[in-house]
C-alpha cells in the first residue's frame, strides 16, 4: 500500500473514534495521544479498528511501540509488506 493511502486509512480509522481530528493538525513525530484526546478505551478501539480494516495482527505486546503517528505508519507498512 502506498504511504499516502495508508495514512488516509489510519486517519479515517482515528476519525471514527475522534471525529474532531483535523488531519493537517497532526504531527507524525509527536505522541498521538498528546495531540488527540484518546483515553485507554479509545486507543484500544483505534488499534482494533486498524486491525479490522487492514487485516493486520497487532499483538498487545507491540502496543508500547506505537506512540506517534509515524510509529503507527511504519509499523503497519512493515506488516503489510
Amino acid at each position: 500500500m502506498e504511504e499516502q493511502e495508508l495514512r488516509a486509512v489510519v486517519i479515517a480509522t482515528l476519525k471514527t473514534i475522534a471525529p474532531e481530528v483535523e488531519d493537517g493538525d497532526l504531527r507524525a513525530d509527536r505522541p498521538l495521544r498528546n495531540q488527540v484526546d484518546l483515553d485507554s478505551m479509545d486507543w484500544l478501539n483505534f488499534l482494533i479498528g486498524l486491525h479490522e480494516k487492514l487485516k493486520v495482527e497487532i499483538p498487545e505486546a507491540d502496543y508500547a511501540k506505537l506512540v506517534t503517528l509515524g510509529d503507527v505508519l511504519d509499523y503497519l507498512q512493515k506488516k503489510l509488506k
Partner: protein
Amino acid sequence: MDRPAIIRKTAADLRLPPNLADYAATRAAFSWDAVRAELAGLPGGRLNIAHETVERHAVGPLRDKAAFRFLGAHDTRDITYGELSRLTNRFANVLKSLGVGKGERLFLLSGRIPELYVTVLGSFKNGTVVSPLFSAFGPEPIATRIKLGEGAVLVTTELLYERKVAKIRGELPTLRHVLLVGEEGRATNVPGTLDLATLMAQASDEFDIVPTGPEDLSLLHFTSGTTGTPKGAMHVHGAVATHWATGKYALDLHAEDIYWCTADPGWVTGTSYGIIAPLLHGVTSIVDEADFDAERWYRILDEQKVSVWYTAPTAIRMLMKAGAEIAKKHSYPALRFVASVGEPLNPEAVWWGKEVLGLPIHDNWWQTETGGIMIANTPAFDIKPGSMGRPLPGIEAAIVKKESDGKVSPVDTADTEGELALKRGWPSMLRGYLHNEERYRKCFAGEWYLTGDLAKRDADGYFWFVGRADDVIKSAGHLIGPFEVESALMEHPAVAEAGVIGKPDEMVGEVVKAFVSLKKGFEACEALRMELLGHARKKLGAAVAPKEIDFLPSLPRTRSGKIMRRLLKARELGLPEGDTSTLEGGA
C-alpha cells in the same frame, strides 16, 4: 472455572506482620484522637498536610530516601524527601510572590509529572487550596470547574494550555495567574502566562508553613451528581488522620515498601493515595508518567520491585485481556499486597490476581466525599470475591432504609438491599460542597452520611455493592454526571433533546451512551452522528464525552418534563420498563 466463594488466608499468605491483625479488637480499641496523636502536628494545635507528608521526614532519617520515583518517557528521576521539601518551599514562595494567599484556589491540569506533585504539596504549605483536574477533560468541564471554584491560579503544561485552556481563558475572570510547564524542560513564552521553571529558579528554598488548622481547607475535589453542575467537595488538612490510618490498615504500608498507586491525581484516589498516604508513611512511590500499557505495567511491577500496588478494576481487566503470556515474561517476587478501587471488582478479576500475579486482589470502597478508604479487604482476612470487604477501624457503616418522616434507620437483617450509609465524624469527611449548602445537607440524615450507593451486608459483616441510587454514570471508576454531557450535546444546533445513560461494559464498568432527538430540518445519518460525537469530544474531552450516540424520534419524559433516563437504560438493555405511570403520554 468452579472456584470457592471465599479465598481463605493463612499465615503463609503474609510476608510481613499485618498492621490490621485482629479486626474486632482493633476496632474496639480505635479512636481518632489516638490516631491524631500519631501525627507530628505543629505548635499551637496547628496541622498542615505538607508538614506531615514532607517536612517531618525531610529533617529526619528519611531525608535522603526517595519519596517519588518518576518513570518518564526517556528517563527515571528520583526525588528524595529532602529535595521534595526544598522544591515545595520554592513553589510556596512562588505563590507568595504572586500574592496568592491562604484559602485561595489553585487548579491543576497536567499529566503525572514531578511539577504536579510539587505544586500540590507546595500549595498546602502556602495554605492555598488545590483543585486537581483530569488532563483528559475538555475545555467545557475545565471552565465549569474553574468558574465554580473561582480559581485564582492554574498550573498546567504548555501543550494542554494551548489545546484546552487558551480558547476559554476569556471566560475565567478570577484566574489571575497561569503557570506553564514547558515541553521537555524548555522555557515557555506564551502571552498571558508565566513560565513555572523560571519562577521556581528565582524562588528561595526556605519557607515557613503558613499557619493552618485541622479544619482549614486543603483540597477541592469536583464530583458529579445526576442533575446540575458538578459539586466541589471541600476537604481539610485534618483529613490526614484518615490517610494515615487507612495507609496503615487498608494498604498495610510498611516503611520498606515500594508502593505504586496507578490512579491519576486528577481524581481523589490519585491525591489521597497517590500523594498523601504514601508520603505520610515514608515509603517510596512509583509514578508512571505514561498511559496504560500492559507490557510496561508488568515490567514496572517487576523491575521497580513494587511491594504494594493500588490500582483499578478497568486496568486489571485490560491486563486480563492482554493475556497471561505477557505477565509471565516477568516475575513479581517483591509484590506482597494488591488492592483495587473505583468500582466493584468482579470475582474473576480477584482470582486472576491469585492465578497470574500469585496474589488475590483486595477490593475496597470509598468515594470523593469520604476522602479516604472506608470499607476494605485487608491482607490478613479472608476475601469473598465480589465483596468490597468490611468497614475499617474508626468507620461505622450500615445499610439504611428511609422512614416516612425522612429519617433513616439501619437495617439489621443480613442480605437486605438498601442505601450504604456511614456514621458521620471521620476526619476526611467532606466539609461541604462549595457554594452549595443545600446539596451538602441532603447528603445527611441525622448522624448518617448517605453515600448514594445501594449495597447489602452479609451475615459476616462483608458489604456488597448493588448499584447507584441515582443516574450517575461510573466509567473506569470515575463518576460522570449525565446532565453535563446532555448540556454539551444540547449546544449543537441539530439537537432537540438529549438523554445520557451508563451502558454496562465489561472493560470499564459503564460507557457513556447518549440518545438524542433532532430538531426539525435535521436528518439522522452517520455523518451527523460523527459530527455530534466530535462536537461532544471537543467540548467535554475523551473522559466525559459519549462513546456511543443513538438517534430517537423523541425521548421519554415524565409529565413534569424530566427525561426518564431509567427508561432509556431499560430499553437499551432489553429489561422490564418498571413503573411508567409518570411517563408523559403513557407511551
